[in-house]
């Protein structure tokens, strides 16, 4: 195989070649590092590339595999993680100049588990400052969308989306507080899973909202997503909220057998007046295609869906401000302008407002779980529109603008963060916008710990459609 073609393999296909010793981990790492050097000057998807560390880890993986110490599907496979996760001896910035010199003295649990699985860490990926999803200035370079460099790759796991879509890593980790995995997956034509809250450890992850944050995979295929989740899922004594329960074999669950499942189409999302017409048509067709695979399709209701963005914003603002309280007093000017506004807002929000947001959250959760009583999976668009143009000007010009930003016109993801259930975005087509093809995502959500079922349904859909085979023009 031509070395330059290696990065275009799926993670599982690459892992299979490595397992059969038809390709060495060192060749794979070198191929990815070469491509990062050639392409990432345009995309700015990486904040830090760990070239020497990756090559050393690849040599060690090669030696281990030769002596028969094979660790599984990710052994020798080059991966990258959002710069929100601690990496021992490698700076972890959170996308902020405040942490420009932060060198953790240990790995986040998810990073440690990827390494235990034999994955090769290529580097740390760009992101919105402290995962708020609202920053304009990116101190380590503005991340661009590989499908159209003038557009946003999605927030806040921007680099995870851009790098994975551009084949600058085989698979990646992002973090999702209000949609920060599914939004880049939507914008970049990828599979992104926000796992059930409690399935994946938060230890060593820079926090945005303690009650909604969770790490998860962003990958080019559902199978890659499954093996990446497999590596990081499971109880961690250092995160007391991780569930102490067996982790299923997610890859083995990708059987294609979905006949008889019930899918609930969320009517408040599909009938929303703000839905881009091409998104509505494309997601509608995707749901019809699922029906052809033997699932039954019915309409369900989540009445609070259109308020989820505001509720999410209120909770995120308060919990972020609590994390950043000391720096808000001493280093306010070092934050992006929009982040300053959001954190200050959270810092002074009246307690009764936050309390009401929590009550609305619980009601929202009940509505989601009620919809899932009769249905196995919920379906709706991942976003109301394809990737937007890159942001240029920070700031709020009026209260009405602030209200528009928070009123959920673009966010269809936060409702599942409030409910702490798993949700996934899988590519389901493209919108033609100003001469460019921009990806559209189908969002699937499920009951707590039904992550495997979401992967199964997404895989069956993916394998019956061509969308995952298309690559961005870069």
């Amino acid at each position, binding site marked *: 195989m031509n070395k330059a073609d290696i990065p275009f393999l799926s993670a599982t296909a690459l892992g299979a070649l490595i397992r059969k010793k038809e390709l060495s981990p060192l060749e794979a790492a070198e191929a990815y590092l070469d491509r990062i050097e050639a392409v990432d000057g345009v995309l700015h998807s990486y904040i830090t590339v760990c070239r020497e560390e990756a090559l050393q880890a690849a040599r060690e993986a090669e030696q281990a595999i030769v002596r028969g110490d094979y660790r599984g599907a990710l052994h020798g496979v080059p991966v990258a993680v959002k710069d929100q996760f601690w990496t021992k001896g490698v700076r972890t910035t959170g996308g902020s100049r405040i942490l420009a010199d932060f060198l953790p003295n240990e790995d986040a649990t998810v990073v440690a588990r990827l390494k235990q699985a034999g994955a090769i860490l290529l580097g740390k990926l760009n992101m919105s400052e402290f995962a708020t999803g609202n920053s304009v200035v990116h101190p380590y370079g503005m991340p661009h969308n590989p499908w159209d460099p003038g557009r946003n790759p999605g927030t806040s796991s921007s680099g995870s989306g851009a790098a994975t879509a551009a084949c600058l890593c085989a698979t990646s980790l992002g973090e999702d507080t209000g949609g920060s995995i599914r939004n880049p997956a939507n914008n970049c034509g990828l599979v992104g899973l926000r796992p059930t*809250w409690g399935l994946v450890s938060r230890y060593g992850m820079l926090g945005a909202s303690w009650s909604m944050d969770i790490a998860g995979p962003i990958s080019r295929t559902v199978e890659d997503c499954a093996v990446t989740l497999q590596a990081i899922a499971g109880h961690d004594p250092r995160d007391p909220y991780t569930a102490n329960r067996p982790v299923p074999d997610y890859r083995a669950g990708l059987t294609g057998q979905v006949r008889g499942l019930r899918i609930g189409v969320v009517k408040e999302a599909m009938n929303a007046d703000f839905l881009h017409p091409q998104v509505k048509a494309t997601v509608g067709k995707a749901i019809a295609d699922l029906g052809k695979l033997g699932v039954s399709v019915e309409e369900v209701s989540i*009445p609070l869906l259109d*308020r989820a963005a505001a509720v999410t914003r209120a909770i995120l603002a308060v919990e972020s401000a609590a994390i950043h309280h000391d720096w808000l007093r001493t280093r306010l000017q070092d934050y992006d302008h929009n982040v300053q506004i*959001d954190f200050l807002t959270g810092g*002074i929000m009246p307690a009764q407002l936050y309390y009401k947001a929590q009550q609305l959250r619980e009601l929202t959760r009940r509505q989601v779980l009620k919809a899932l009583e009769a249905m196995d999976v919920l379906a709706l668009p991942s976003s109301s529109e394809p990737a937007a143009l890159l942001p240029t000007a920070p700031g709020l010009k*009026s*209260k009405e603008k602030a209200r528009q930003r928070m009123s959920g016109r673009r966010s269809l993801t936060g409702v599942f963060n409030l409910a702490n259930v798993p949700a996934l975005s899988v590519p389901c087509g493209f919108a033609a916008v100003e001469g460019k093809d921009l990806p559209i995502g189908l969002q699937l959500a*499920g009951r*707590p*710990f039904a992550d495997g079922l979401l992967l199964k349904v997404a895989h069956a859909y993916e394998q019956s459609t061509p969308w995952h085979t298309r690559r961005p023009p870069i």
Partner: protein
Amino acid sequence: MADLSKDELKTLGRAVGIEIEEPLLTEVAYNLNALRDLLEDVNPPGLVQVEPLPIIPPHERSPHEQG
């Protein structure tokens, strides 16, 4: 509900040890008052009876889990 004034916002800030000055103060006022409006408008039935327990680790097994 009337908007919070800038002076009131500055006072809220001082109560938690944060000084908010212009030009940020104007934008914080837009942001917080917009959020108050949005949440004030939402009053679904049964809201006041809801106990806001944001984190309930869902330890029940899903019938669709594999393995």
